[in-house]
């Protein structure tokens, strides 16, 4: 729609197109924030003990191997 009541200060860059681009930018920004939030939620979970147990056992395994 063309708004005839207001004069466009920049005829080469219609306000509606600027708004459209701004909208797209805002949406991408929002998606980015949510993506990081989703990822960080898992990062911030406490690490299950299993992980450290496995590393500890791996350590023992490799030192007994070397002891033989």
């Amino acid at each position, binding site marked *: 729609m063309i708004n005839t009541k207001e004069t466009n200060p920049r005829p080469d860059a219609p306000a509606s197109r600027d708004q459209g681009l701004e909208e*797209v930018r*805002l*949406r*991408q*920004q*929002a*998606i*980015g*924030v*949510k*993506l*990081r*939030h*989703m*990822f*960080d*939620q*898992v*990062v*911030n*979970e406490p*690490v*299950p003990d*299993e*992980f*450290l147990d*496995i*590393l500890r056992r*791996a*350590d023992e395994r490799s*030192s007994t191997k*070397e*002891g033989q």
Partner: protein
Amino acid sequence: MSSTGAPPKPPSADDDGFKKELVTLIPHLRAFARTLTGDPTAADDLAQEAMMKAWDARASYQMGTNMKAWTFMILRNQFYSEKRRSWRQTQLDQEAAERTLVAVDDPEAPVALDELRQALKTLPEEQREALILVGAGGFAYEEAAEICQCAVGTVKSRVSRARKALAATLERGGYGRDGKAAGDAMRSILADADRLSGARQS
């Protein structure tokens, strides 16, 4: 540390340093695995296997280089080689995995996060991983290219296509959720992002 008479081990100071750094990466490996598998249990199995592979391959890692990217690459390779082996089983398990994903969702988690997870699932795999690495994992395009073993330009175009597709999917709510008006997903994402960035600033 007491030595128990075992023969002197070669560079164990290196091993200690390696292990310390590996431990700090566990939360990130878990998060990346979760986005690849979509299932918390399978993700932890995958992250544990990747951690072990990294540990076993520690001799080939150069201290001081990017260990995060290196371990992510190991995890990703592990994921795809297992997937190739068991793609049939994966398909059979798909439904169960989706149920699990819904079941473990925090009931108080804002709806927007669930919308985003659903929309992410609709992306082609290579676009999803590129977007996650760059958009959530904090990797530079160059690092993501290293992890995915492809050209930097390929990563850039995948991320850009993923962003557009994701916005379009959220916009129309087109991933088959019942009773939702089009645009609801995007609206809740926008509202929630506002809330989050507001909380961060205050």
